[in-house]
């Protein structure tokens, strides 16, 4: 896919052409909405990624990443080998004393604890070795009019349409309601970049049924109780 670089001002002008009444929105206001659009896009797709190396300590299970760098940790590796992800609850139930300081060895598992914090098990038995963390970075947001936004060519339309949807919120009424398809357009575009998104209820709530799902029979319980039967 071809790549394009737009300045914040060019992006803003593109939004203005969609809005029609350019004087109702100030530059600073539209800039905020452009930044919100980019953040939304990054949340839906993990478009901007980051890699950070942190230094392991002997016997240390818990690690905190530097503030604001990561939006999501997606992969942790130790000495070139990817660790297997499990949940903290799973680990606690499987081995309640897993984070005792004596529980050291070659790390095999990692657990997401918060968006900027993770744990590994067992704790490293070597100090000073790198733990490589990959994830979705905090969205790079343009501040100055000349700051650039690097995106795929085909994304300019859905992103500017979504910004228009946000801008029309303050107008309200039917005009705002009529831009709901432009919000769906962003989610549909995002699903091409993140196939897992389509399998979430959240996606179906926003976009509606996918074509594949529309063919499935709609099961309804008669009277709201009892076994479910197909009509």
């Amino acid at each position, binding site marked *: 896919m071809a790549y394009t670089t737009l300045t914040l001002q060019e992006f803003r002008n593109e939004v203005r052409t969609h809005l029609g009444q350019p004087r109702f929105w100030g530059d600073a206001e539209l800039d905020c909405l452009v930044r919100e659009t980019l*953040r939304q896009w990054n949340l839906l797709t993990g478009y901007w990624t980051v890699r950070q190396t942190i230094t392991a300590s002997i016997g240390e299970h818990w690690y905190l990443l530097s503030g604001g760098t990561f939006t999501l940790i997606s992969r942790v590796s130790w000495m070139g080998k990817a660790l297997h992800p499990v*949940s*903290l609850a799973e680990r606690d139930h499987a081995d309640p004393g897993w984070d005792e300081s004596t529980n050291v060895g070659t790390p095999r598992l990692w657990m997401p604890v918060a968006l900027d914090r993770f744990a590994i098990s067992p704790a490293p038995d070597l100090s000073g070795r790198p733990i490589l963390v990959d994830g979705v970075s905090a969205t790079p947001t343009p501040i100055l009019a000349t700051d650039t936004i690097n995106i795929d060519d085909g994304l300019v339309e859905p992103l500017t349409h979504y910004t228009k949807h946000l801008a029309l919120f303050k107008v309200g009424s039917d005009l705002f309601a009529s831009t709901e398809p432009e919000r769906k357009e962003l989610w549909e575009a995002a699903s091409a970049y993140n196939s897992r998104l389509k399998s*979430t209820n959240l996606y179906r709530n926003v976009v509606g049924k996918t074509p594949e799902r529309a063919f499935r029979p709609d099961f309804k319980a008669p009277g709201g109780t009892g076994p479910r039967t197909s009509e």
Partner: protein
Amino acid sequence: MSRLDSDLITEMQDALIETRNASSMTTDIWTLDELVDSLNDRQASFLRQTGCILTRESITGYIGVHRYEPASNSVGIRRLVWVRRSDGDRHPVHRATTWESDNRNPTWMRGRAVTRPRTFGETLTPADAFEVFEAPNEVGSFDALYVGISSALTGAGVALTVPDDFAHYIKWGVLADLLLKRGQPEDRARAAYCEARFEEGIELAKLFMTNEVRRG
């Protein structure tokens, strides 16, 4: 996090067709205090429901003491482990309710200290404390993982605790509150939209926490 409460207030003033002003609202429809109160509520609600930012702290446990308070303002304990000082053994402390403990052992509050705490519950007063239903009989510590809020928002440029990329969902939550205010500002259609956006943020953050929406 680098996003400030004043940034969100400015964006909300834009969305409500108010003039950008850090110290007051131009019209008398809403007050700045209403915005700030709602900001605090929505941020706490978002963090409590998602657990996306957690604080880890070691809290000293004393013989016979039931009630403990984390250093940072806690809005929900996510994980509690009792660490025995004598040998460093770690034991999970499970969540229970006061009702369960009262019915299991009505004298738990004046009961003798037991080997180690097994269950805990969050207290209503003070709201950010927790109590263990079996007080320890030896000194140790609690390894607590909780939702902590670093500082209350005032509207004067305090950094949000919510990650930057999720901050706009707090804005939608506050707008939902403001647009439900009785009288002239009431706009149920847009308030419903804003509430749905806030819920969307919570769902998205939960998916992030479980790694279910990783790019694939």
